[in-house]
């Protein structure tokens, strides 16, 4: 038991008191997630006057234990943990596949890194050249070598704990912290994987395995997703706070309504606050609002000059919405598996990743440390207590084991973010319409991942009880592709520097610029691209 401040008493008093615009801003950044935070921090280092506008609130770090209580108690939904607002965050789903958007994001200072798992892999080299290497998708206008120094800088900025991976792309120096030690259940998997000649290797975690950058090492709260009360898991507030110490202004509850512009420049961001509407002018704008709100803001900023949406001469704004697909399988063993002590993964395999071609997508496989139910969460449901409850917990916990995996989804024109003009948010703006569709290559690959998972679990002697296969897969909550990068202004929204083709003073720092998704968790690539954007913006200024 801890001294636990109650969930009902979260004060939400940490936000700004002055939400008026900043005079003479060099840069206005829209969005205070990890991308916006890193851009702000680096541009502050370069001496620029920076303002960050964030639609959601600023959360008080001291409330994190109370938010953890929300994560554990069945009374609260997952979106409740970070105070999702049904009106502010309203959305539609017109695609063939349902997309649980507000389970997939957190809105506020820190963005979705507040609730993320915290796995930080580099994309593989072939991910940047899908069309030429695999015969499907499209090539990025940059290569791994272009991003390689930024990957290292991002690993140092975020703080990554990791070890050797024989399948990963080349790297120049080790990650800044040693990997977390393998789990007990990893040792069970290792025996089966040895038999099957599958190589396991450490997961790179954006989670401190030791004190790093003034933040605690992991203390094992076990609720990484959706909240880390210790601060050992990186989130965007780290660089927001760093940026503020260097003079950056961060305005929370500042929902940008529209980007005012002329033919080739953004002139101001109009934003709504609890105290009224304001207008932020700046020389340069960086949109860092994620894979859904970024295209939505561009579409909402349509004009006579840009009737289909700002920066949308290509017609690509909103198109090619992608997520990673989850492939999983699990069951029980006839021995203890020691799950749910921590909320992160320690081992994975990329062994099959680069077998990808036009038929099969790249995929990675994960060895879970949190298979099956968490006893405390079990204890809060059911109609028993006392000895009966304890027996139910003892029977229900202890022998679960599972594998997961992520599969690439190809970009498709019929998978997109649009506007639902029939539904409006709390400011009267059309809500985002998530029109998500998935193709056969991804579904075939999920089956392939399931085959390997089944071989490992059967080798281990697991009684398989569930499968997340092609018919029951879901998204990994990685929004990508909706303002894609291309050298061709007719085929992409931003160029290789992440500057919009249409507007000279507008950059986009987000997974929305990914032309293809690979199958790696996207945030390290988001961070690397953000640092690269900061460099190019600095040069332009």
């Amino acid at each position, binding site marked *: 038991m801890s001294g636990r401040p109650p969930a009902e008493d979260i004060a939400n008093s940490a936000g700004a008191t002055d939400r008026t615009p900043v005079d003479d801003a060099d840069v206005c950044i829209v969005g205070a997630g990890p991308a916006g935070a890193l851009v702000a921090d680096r541009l502050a280092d370069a001496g620029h006057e920076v303002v960050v506008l964030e639609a959601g609130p600023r959360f008080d770090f001291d409330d994190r234990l109370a938010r953890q209580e929300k994560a554990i*108690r069945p009374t609260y939904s997952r979106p409740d943990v970070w105070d999702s607002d049904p009106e502010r965050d309203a959305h539609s789903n017109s695609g063939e596949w349902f997309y649980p958007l507000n389970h997939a994001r957190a809105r506020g200072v820190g963005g979705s890194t507040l609730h993320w798992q915290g796995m930080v892999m580099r994309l593989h080299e072939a991910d940047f050249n899908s069309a030429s290497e695999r015969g499907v998708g499209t090539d990025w206008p940059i290569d791994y070598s272009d991003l390689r120094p930024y990957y290292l800088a991002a690993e140092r900025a975020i703080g990554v704990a990791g070890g050797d991976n024989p399948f990963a792309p080349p790297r120049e120096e080790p990650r800044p912290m040693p990997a977390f030690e393998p789990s007990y259940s990893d040792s069970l998997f290792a025996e089966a994987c040895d038999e099957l000649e599958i190589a396991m290797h450490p997961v790179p975690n954006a989670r401190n395995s030791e004190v790093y950058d003034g933040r605690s090492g992991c203390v*094992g709260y076990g609720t990484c997703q959706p909240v880390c009360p210790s601060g050992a898991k990186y989130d965007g507030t780290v660089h927001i706070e760093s940026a503020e110490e260097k003079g950056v202004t961060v305005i929370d509850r500042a929902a940008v309504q529209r980007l005012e512009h002329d033919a080739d420049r953004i002139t101001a961001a109009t934003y709504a606050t609890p105290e009224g509407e304001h207008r932020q002018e700046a020389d340069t704008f960086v949109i860092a609002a994620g894979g859904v709100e970024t295209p939505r803001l561009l579409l909402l900023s349509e004009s006579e000059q840009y009737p289909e949406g700002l920066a949308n001469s290509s017609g690509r704004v909103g198109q090619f919405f992608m997520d990673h697909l989850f492939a999983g399988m699990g069951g029980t063993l006839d021995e203890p598996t020691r799950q749910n002590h921590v909320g992160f993964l320690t081992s994975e395999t990329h062994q099959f990743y680069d077998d990808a071609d036009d038929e099969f997508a790249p995929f990675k496989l994960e060895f879970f440390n949190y298979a099956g139910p968490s006893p405390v969460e079990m204890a809060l449901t059911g109609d028993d207590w006392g000895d009966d409850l304890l027996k139910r917990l003892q029977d229900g916990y202890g022998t679960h084991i599972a594998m997961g995996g992520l599969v690439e989804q190809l970009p498709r024109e019929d998978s997109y973010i649009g506007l639902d003009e029939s539904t409006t948010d709390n400011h009267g703006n059309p809500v985002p319409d998530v029109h998500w569709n998935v193709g056969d290559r991804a579904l075939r690959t999920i089956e392939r991942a399931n085959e390997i998972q089944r071989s490992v679990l059967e080798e281990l002697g697991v009684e398989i009880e569930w499968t997340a296969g092609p018919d029951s897969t879901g998204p990994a909550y990685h929004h990508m592709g909706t303002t894609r990068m291309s050298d061709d202004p007719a085929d992409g929204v931003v160029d290789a520097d992440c500057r919009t083709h249409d507007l000279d003073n507008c950059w986009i720092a987000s997974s929305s610029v990914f032309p293809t998704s690979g199958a790696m968790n996207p945030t390290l690539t988001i961070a690397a691209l953000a640092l690269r954007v900061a460099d190019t913006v600095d040069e332009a200024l």
Partner: protein
Amino acid sequence: MKLTRRDAAAALAALGAGGAAVAVGHNSEDGRRSDDDLDEAAIRETMVAAAEVLYPDAVTGIDDFVTTFVDSRLTGETHAAGVADAVAAVNDRAESWYDDRFAALDADTRDSVLREMAADTAEPRREGSTAEEVRYYVVNELLLALYSSPTGGELVGIENPQGYAGGVDSYQRGPQA
């Protein structure tokens, strides 16, 4: 298995010097009752009595553990009002059906009171029916305290349960370690 100071350590840190009374009178702004001005002692007594029913027989040291936990939780004004409401409802039911306050009843009768209030089958809700609020503020409150503690976890076989900062060693250890 005894609930120890380790289980309560963090909560002890939250205790203010002197144990000053916490205002737990009900806020009438949301229409809730405001006249049953329970004091901390009554809340502690009732919550301990409930925990003796809700916790498995193997657990000892309940009085100190629950008292410490409850005191740390009453520092939240909204939460304290909710707990006070729920505790008052439990005592009202005990008085009207069994002619005594909840803590004065034997354990089987206390179990019956909670079940007769449907606190075993109700959904846990902060602002719901009486049964739902008792489930949230009494039953689940106390079960959360126990099963997110190392002693509660060990009863189930996990010495570092979710919600407890038990470090990064236990996940590496096998069952015999």
